[in-house]
């Protein structure tokens, strides 16, 4: 029952899970970053679908209708807007880190980077 009526949220948590596993398990740094983005957008989808109400309008007040029954919930949209900015900032920062890391170790595979790094300290 809930699976059908809540299918958007189900999709959202699936996306979250895929992104999460990418971030946790993928060895490639760039794909980790993409995974992080997917994870976050999963949460945003979850939030936004929570604010959606059937048969209403987008929350931009036109024609002077100020009835709360006429518009969808604007709160999740605002939160998601904030969230998107956060995730793009983090993405940019992670990419900058990636560039530096690649300059030093010439690979994106974290396993190899750890190996090189641990030998570096021994030297």
């Amino acid at each position, binding site marked *: 029952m809930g699976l059908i*009526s809540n299918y958007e949220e189900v999709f959202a*948590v699936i996306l979250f899970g895929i992104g999460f*596993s990418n971030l946790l398990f993928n060895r490639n740094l760039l794909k980790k970053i993409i995974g992080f983005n997917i994870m976050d957008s999963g949460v945003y989808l979850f939030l936004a679908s929570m604010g959606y109400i059937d048969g209403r309008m987008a929350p931009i007040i036109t024609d002077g209708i100020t009835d709360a029954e006429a518009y969808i919930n604007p709160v999740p949209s605002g939160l998601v*807007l904030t969230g998107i900015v956060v995730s793009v900032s983090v993405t*940019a920062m992670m990419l900058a880190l990636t560039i530096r890391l690649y300059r030093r170790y010439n690979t994106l595979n974290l396993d190899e980077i750890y190996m090189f790094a641990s030998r570096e300290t021994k030297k």
Partner: protein
Amino acid sequence: MARIRDNYERSAAYRAEKVIKGEAEPLDFLPEEDRTTEDKLTIEKTVKESESELSLSPETLTETVEFKLYSRIYKALSVVVCIIFITSLVITAIHLPSLGSDLNPANNEVPERYVEKGVEETGAINTVAGMILDYRAFDTFGESCVLFAAVICVLILLKESDLSAAEHSDRQNEPKNDGILKAAASILFPVIIIFGFYVILNGHLSAGGGFSGGAILGSGMILYLLAFGFEKAHKLFNYKTFAVTVCSAQIFYCIAKGFSFFTGANEIETHIPLGNPGDILSSGLILPLNICVGLVVAYTIYTFYVMFRRGGF
């Protein structure tokens, strides 16, 4: 774990440099006892173990049976964890209040007031803009600080003190006098900039606002840079204008919001005119704040690009 790692590295350390430099074949130096340690490790299957083991699964082992076994176990493990995690979240999602109905707990008096009184209290027709820049402005201020922090971190990471080396490496990236690109950019650049400003200035009237408009402006600036090269772009956008713009916009944002929070908490009337809802010049502080956010975002994004590309303006 640490001791095993130490042993391992001690035995292989003297060849490490060769491998890094590509002088030695990685597979040559797989000491016998390390296989056993690696073998031992693969048996321990918990998530924690595999995480801390990362430092142990080097390129030198990628061809061995043990490594393949290990990576297969790792993959299987990741799939299992992923499935468990997703399943539990899906079950949770099924149990949530059903979507799309107006009986959700989230549809309470909060959005009601945002919609019903938003226009008269904030002057913004776009309820979302009114909400993020007036009702819940502290969050949005935090958001612009996140952006600021991110651009500072990128500067810390990638800003080169000596640009000549960076310029040399950048030569490969530079498009070489591409006529089509230039012609297209000279048409597109003004259009993009105008559209960006339109989105910013109409943030309180329609969809859009400081952030999306700023992103559009930023991409316009990047296009300008790509088409006309660094020298021309530097006349318009350089580190000095970046610092001045971002600093002053952020300071204005900080002071304006600080003023409105202070007066709000102390119940002082601000006498900021809200104007006639629907006009461009309306809705009090929202319009100037949108412009500030837009400028900050545009410059931030341009800076990201420039820093990524050659580490300096």
